């Protein structure tokens, strides 16, 4: 899986939680919360959606590592998801 594929997967998890963002351009290095209208519950649901899509366990203390698209991609790769 390429970085681009992982980025797409992250975006679709985000759009599933916040369908109003569908079609928006996601800035890669800006925290989602700074770009878009999402709250803490949305973010929690986003992490749960990522877990479901990848099977990767994401402990709560790692949540800040998922705050932007680039960071989320790097995190999932570091967890061995790219294979």
């Amino acid at each position, binding site marked *: 899986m390429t970085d681009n594929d992982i980025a797409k997967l992250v975006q679709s998890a985000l*759009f599933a939680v916040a369908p*109003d963002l569908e079609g928006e351009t996601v800035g890669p290095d800006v925290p989602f919360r700074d770009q878009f209208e999402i709250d803490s519950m949305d973010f929690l649901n986003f992490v749960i959606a990522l877990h479901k899509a990848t099977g990767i366990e994401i402990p709560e203390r790692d949540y800040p590592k998922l705050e932007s698209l680039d960071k989320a991609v790097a995190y999932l790769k570091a967890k061995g998801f790219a294979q």
Partner: protein
Amino acid sequence: MAWEVIRKRGAGGRPAANLADYDEAARLFSWAEAAKQLAGLPGGQGLNIGYEAADRHVAAGHGDVVALRSLARGREPLEYTYRELAERSSRFAGALAGLGVAPRERVFTLLGRLPELYIAALGTWKRGAVLSPLFSAFGPAPVLARMQIAEPTVLVTTQKLYERKVAPIRGELPFLRHVVIVGGGDGGLGFDSLLAAAPADFPVARTGTDDLATLHFTSGTTGKPKGAMHMHGAVVAHLTTARLALDLRPDDVYWCTADPGWVTGTSYGIIGPLCVGATVIADEEDFDAERWYAILQNEKVTVWYTAPTAIRMLMRAGAELPKSYDLSRLRFIASVGEPLNPEAVVWGQTALGRPIHDNWWQTETGGVMISNFLSMDIKPGSMGRPLPGIEAAIADRKNSHVEIIREPGREGELALKAGWPSMMRGYLHEEERYRKCFADGWYLTGDLARRDEDGYFWFVGRADDVIKSSGHLIGPFEVESTLMEHPAVAEAGVIGIPDAVAGEVVKAYVSLHKGFTESEVLKKEILAHARKKLGPAVAPRDLAFRPSLPKTRSGKIMRRLLKARELGLAEGDTSTLESGS
């Protein structure tokens, strides 16, 4: 499962507390005595919340105490002493006067926890104008609905929030004369330049106890949001309850995590702690477990007032995490917004070293009414006992009368003897809805509860269909109305679904017009529509299609029955149900 009572009398007796002995304090308390703790305007010229919160401390020689430490990612903390807060809020009051804003005009804020929020709030009161804080996660629709009711002449916001939430509806706000933009930018006047041009010694308005100070919007089951009106005289309750329920003292470092758009963010984010003379920590950022523990440690927070949803999110992060932080300065933790489950109370004790003290109140009560106190044993899961000066009871509503249930353990509606100082004095332009909240001298809260044999109150549920999500009341009607604006939606019913973190989350059930087909794409489209209009805090998190929704013969959606069906609960009385639904 029965939870063990958390005893407060250790070997060294009860902890030293502002409220040392509950029964004695309740017996001796009088609001007239409590009012003597207020400064009042110099020369006996009235009472003003802004003056009580800032200027009085300067006059008393405490002007150099830090009133506010404002935190945000990517910058150093900003500090404001009581003197600076008094001066800047006077400038804001003067700036309002310069803009032609008269006393009693409404000033809305749509801001996060920025220092300017505190300055604008105090300055608005000092001008004698009426403050109404909005929740910055509201979408344009809730902002519009609330503004159309109160017709503010001034809005204080940021450029980003203005562009997202106000610019799309600006044409529908003819009454709004001025927009003040924190940080400057397009769309309005710059906050800083307004302040710089205003006099530092603008006189405080000579308001009295019965002058309108604050308008807090809340949601009911039906109809528009309600603007609960609170007077300057409410400040005696804010000061007293901050001392008794939160055990606040002048040397405390106090952190209230509530959003300023909700009543807690004003009564206990701004007024209570500043009147006490404590140092207030304000963090601009959203919830983040590690950041929060770091704030508790680094800011040496002593008293912390937060919410069940946040506590449950911290619980998710585990009991190990707080062990790597020094929380030894933290001496009191309180929670409000929705009932705190006993697991969370006990978790506080094991993971944070202190139990969490739940308390209960609502927008209409203006301040804490029922509370667990530092010196009083905690029964985990109970909201505690009524504040001194507050008479609470379990009542049975019978048309326009109430019958008080004296027998312990019986469920009924939680009622408060009317007349405490922070009680709302009306819903703006809604006299009828206001009157319906009272019967036989009691204020009826809409919450179902029971009182046990020791006088502790226990929350049971809401008497109406209002949804409590992350501690915020959400009116189903407001959400349903927005869903109905979508061309595919024929009927909409909105209910709260139990959620482990948020208490309840909003879920929508809709039936479609002929010609529309249920699909995942349509579901997302309707949810997207709702989120854009309402904002994430109010919009449904989930949606399901149903061929039809249960409704009365007059066509009203029966949310209670919808909820019973969807959650597999007992359906109760269905005698008014339309046949075939």
